[in-house]
């Protein structure tokens, strides 16, 4: 048999580096069971693969013509015959490539395939004995292989989170794989469900909060421009001092006294919901993190919340921002307000963090922490309590996750759907973090790859000297507020107003084009030249608007409309004319939503502009 290893690896190095680097760096070939897979010739000269086990030998392909078999098998998944467009095909099994190759031929250009191969021996046998360069070079496929890069599967599926949520996924398995690799199939389905749950929750949050986020960003604008951005503090901790993240789980009670003793030995960052408990116990964190636009003001009506500096999302509750009297460091600046303050750095990524504690973890990493200590991060019920001081909040028992999870003390614990999602996030992020994460929660859910210590032990092992902490805190303090902020605020608001006016004109043009398209479509079964030209111009307008800095505000403002219209946007009708009408009507609703958003936000900007002008006079 010919050896295709070098040829396949060369293409892999060019087009699938995520696989290439793992195979090259981890000496995968050393630990293979080469006897478990074999190949021989079919009647037509192509190779057939066999999988051998203790009590089975399974043939993967037709004895006569593997390509013919694969072609007819793949026919059932043809793009143009499917009920959906822009599908994501999630395939269990790569095999020796025949089925995947034919699957790639039947999908449309805007569709993708995510493959998980549960048997590394199979994959390595394939890259040695089969020419799969065409598959490896294809940009519409991603391959995760057990024992090579299986941990990438979840991250890849998360990219397609919304498609998963909208039902654009086709799940399938290579013939015989489900029976051969049941455990691995269960594992893969677990990953898929996690991603679905996470996307569903994000979608719901966006649906409820989208317009509020946009509104809050504008309302906070003045404060944002008077303060600093987190991008100005990247790496400032330089690994010199540990960060203690204080979350508000029920186990926080245990650690209040020790937390007081930890002051000056670590950088203590409290999530906003933990602050009132810290205030009652007389504990002063160094910083607070807030990001939730709907966070109740009652959490912040205490001395600690008012006087402690904050890391705040630009979309935070404006009332909370106004109430706090201390320095603020803003993050989540998607509009890129920081360019008006000459902060020419790429935005910090929150990396899919869905809660304030997870965002704080990302902030700690970004600031340059090499040791992160978690307390109050239960992610599980302690008895009946969901939060510190025995409180039970969000009394919706339907949110209880149906399976028990492993606790730090070896017991099985009840959790909630949202906590379970956060736990999965932690497991992935802690694995990828090249520092130390200590789980000093003393109870709660077990987070993989964390060192389990009490807070006292963690401080004794990782605590810094007071001098070092003071020096770092001084460095942070020295990045100060902007001078001439009034001028910057005024100019920023003028820029925003101009952008809104410009986008408003494009939206009006888009709505006129859609009216033309609907009229033309009703008269033409096939796409007319006028329809083609109008669609092209509509695409150009979409592109122009998407490149404006205010686009992110528009997107957020119209989330409830777009998510609703998006839900069945990709349904395919057999009748092309009906298909087009479906898409045009949906686009019309989205643009009408955008028009309403622009009008509302422009009024806000004009009000802020009037206030700013009064202030400068």
């Amino acid at each position: 048999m010919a050896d295709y290893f070098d040829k396949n690896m060369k293409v892999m190095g060019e087009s699938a580096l995520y696989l290439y680097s793992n195979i090259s760096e981890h000496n995968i070939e050393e630990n293979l069971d080469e006897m478990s897979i074999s190949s021989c010739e079919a009647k037509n000269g192509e190779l057939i693969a066999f999988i051998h086990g203790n009590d089975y030998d399974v043939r993967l392909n037709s004895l006569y013509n593997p390509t013919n078999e694969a072609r007819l098998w793949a026919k059932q998944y043809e793009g143009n015959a499917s009920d959906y467009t822009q599908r994501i095909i999630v395939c269990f099994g790569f095999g020796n490539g025949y089925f995947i190759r034919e699957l790639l031929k039947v999908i449309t250009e805007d569709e993708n395939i995510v493959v998980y191969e549960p048997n590394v021996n199979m994959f390595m046998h394939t890259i040695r004995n089969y020419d799969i360069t065409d598959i490896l070079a294809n940009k519409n496929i991603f391959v995760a292989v057990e024992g090579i890069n299986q941990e990438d599967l979840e991250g890849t599926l998360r990219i397609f989170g919304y498609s998963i949520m909208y039902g654009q996924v086709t799940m399938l398995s290579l013939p015989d794989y489900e029976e051969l690799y049941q455990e691995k199939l269960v594992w893969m389905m677990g990953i898929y469900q996690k991603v679905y749950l996470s996307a569903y929750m994000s979608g719901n949050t966006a649906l409820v909060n989208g317009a509020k986020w946009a509104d809050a960003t504008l309302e906070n604008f003045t404060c944002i421009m008077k303060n600093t951005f987190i991008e100005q503090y990247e790496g400032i901790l330089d690994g010199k001092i540990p960060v203690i993240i204080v979350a508000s789980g029920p186990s926080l009670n245990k650690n209040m006294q020790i937390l007081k003793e930890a002051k000056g030995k670590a950088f203590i960052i409290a999530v906003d919901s933990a602050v009132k408990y810290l205030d009652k116990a007389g504990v002063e964190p160094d910083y607070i993190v807030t990001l939730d636009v709907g966070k109740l003001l009652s959490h912040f009506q205490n001395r600690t919340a008012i006087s402690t500096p904050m890391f705040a999302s630009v979309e935070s509750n404006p009332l909370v921002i106004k109430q706090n009297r201390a320095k603020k460091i803003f993050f989540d600046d998607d509009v890129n307000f920081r360019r008006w303050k000459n902060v020419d750095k790429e935005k910090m990524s929150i990396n899919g963090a869905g809660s304030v504690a997870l965002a704080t973890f990302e902030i700690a990493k970004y600031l340059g922490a090499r040791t992160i200590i978690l307390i109050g991060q239960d992610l599980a019920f302690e008895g009946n309590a969901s939060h510190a001081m025995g409180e039970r909040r969000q009394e919706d028992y339907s949110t209880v996750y149906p399976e028990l999870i492993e606790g730090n003390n070896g017991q099985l614990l009840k959790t909630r759907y949202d906590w379970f999602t956060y736990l999965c996030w932690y497991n992935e992020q802690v694995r990828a973090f090249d520092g130390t994460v200590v789980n000093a929660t003393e109870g709660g859910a077990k987070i993989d790859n964390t060192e389990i210590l009490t807070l006292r032990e963690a401080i004794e092992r990782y605590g810094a000297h007071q001098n070092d902490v003071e020096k770092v805190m001084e460095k942070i303090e020295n990045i100060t507020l902007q001078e001439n902020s009034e001028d910057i605020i005024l100019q920023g608001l003028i820029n925003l107003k101009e952008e809104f006016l410009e986008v408003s004109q494009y939206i009006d043009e888009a709505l006129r084009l859609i009216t033309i398209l609907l009229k033309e479509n009703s008269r033409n079964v096939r796409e007319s030249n006028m329809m083609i030209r109008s669609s092209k111009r509509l695409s150009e307008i979409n592109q122009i608007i998407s490149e404006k800095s205010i686009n992110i505000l528009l997107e957020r403002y119209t989330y409830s409309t777009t998510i609703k219209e998006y839900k069945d946007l990709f349904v395919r009708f057999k009748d092309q004319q009906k298909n087009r009408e479906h898409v045009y009507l949906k686009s019309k609703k989205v643009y009408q939503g955008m028009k309403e958003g622009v009008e509302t936000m422009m009024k806000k900007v004009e009000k802020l502009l009037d206030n700013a002008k009064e202030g400068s006079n």
Partner: protein
Amino acid sequence: MISDKVNYTTEGTMISKVKANLKNFIQITEEMTIAFYQRKDKQGYELYEKFLDALVDVVDELAYLNDNKMLQVDVSKINGRLAKALQALEINDTITFADVIQFEILSDIKMYYNKL
């Protein structure tokens, strides 16, 4: 002669009937093999019942044509290959069954259809 014309007409009608049966058989067989290739075994076995019914008629008719020297048909070859296909089905190897049907029986049936 009138009797010759009657015979010719009867033969022509019979050939048309055989062709129609062959076409029907080809269609059912293709649907059945595709179902098995697509691992839709339940559907495949349902079509297998229809396949067997159609096969009996087709083999009988081809044998008649061969016996009356209207078409040269190797019926024993068809029967031999069918036995091979059924052996695969007995051990639940639906793919080899579909392969034998497609590459060793159907191809010959299509050839006979085109010759008629």
